[in-house]
């Protein structure tokens, strides 16, 4: 199982799922209409490192974070 967190204004409870790559996560989240609307503008981190490939391998216990558009300052 991997753990998925929705940060900031996504305001959604985290969830756990089975996944061996980010591709699996992407397929699952695209089935959730509420989450899907955010996916085009969200960055993704695995264990707090930003990643850029859907082929990123996942291990049990990994934390996946979705980061919507930011505005500090």
């Amino acid at each position, binding site marked *: 199982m991997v753990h998925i967190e929705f940060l900031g204004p996504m305001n959604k409870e985290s969830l756990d799922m089975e996944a061996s790559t980010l591709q699996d996560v992407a*397929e699952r989240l695209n089935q959730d209409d509420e989450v899907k609307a955010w996916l085009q*503008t969200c960055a993704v981190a695995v264990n707090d490192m930003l990643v850029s490939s859907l082929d990123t391998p996942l291990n049990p216990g990994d934390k996946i974070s979705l980061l919507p558009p*930011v*505005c500090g300052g």
Partner: protein
Amino acid sequence: MLELYDNALNVPEILMRWYGDEAQNNYGAFIPFVGTVREESGIEGLSFDIYEPILDRWFEAWQARAKAEGAMVKMAHSKGDVKVHESSYIAAIFSPKRRTALELIGAFVEDFKASAPIWKYDLKDGERLYAKDRSTPISGSGLLGAVQ
């Protein structure tokens, strides 16, 4: 040095402590950037969420970049609510040379705006509204949206 505070920053305390801490370290230039909440669009203030683990990593990378130029970067930011005319953000460069300091403060503040995992909300009429229109997708965003 990354400092996060609940609510508004105590700007005099922070600036003077940073200045004092580095006073003997032979930095010729000290440039702080202080961000203050503007009164506009009828807001009572702003509110901030921060994801600290990634902010820490982002800031560590900036510390290394500054150090490579003989400089130092410090930052303070608010969490939660900050009222109009209060300050929520301070970034500062200490550098031996003025040009390095001017370049780094500009680059830091712009990269902060584009990359730091901080989310801003308008406080208006008792609501906390995500400032979506003023927000920027982090570089590389959309990865999970490429799949149908």
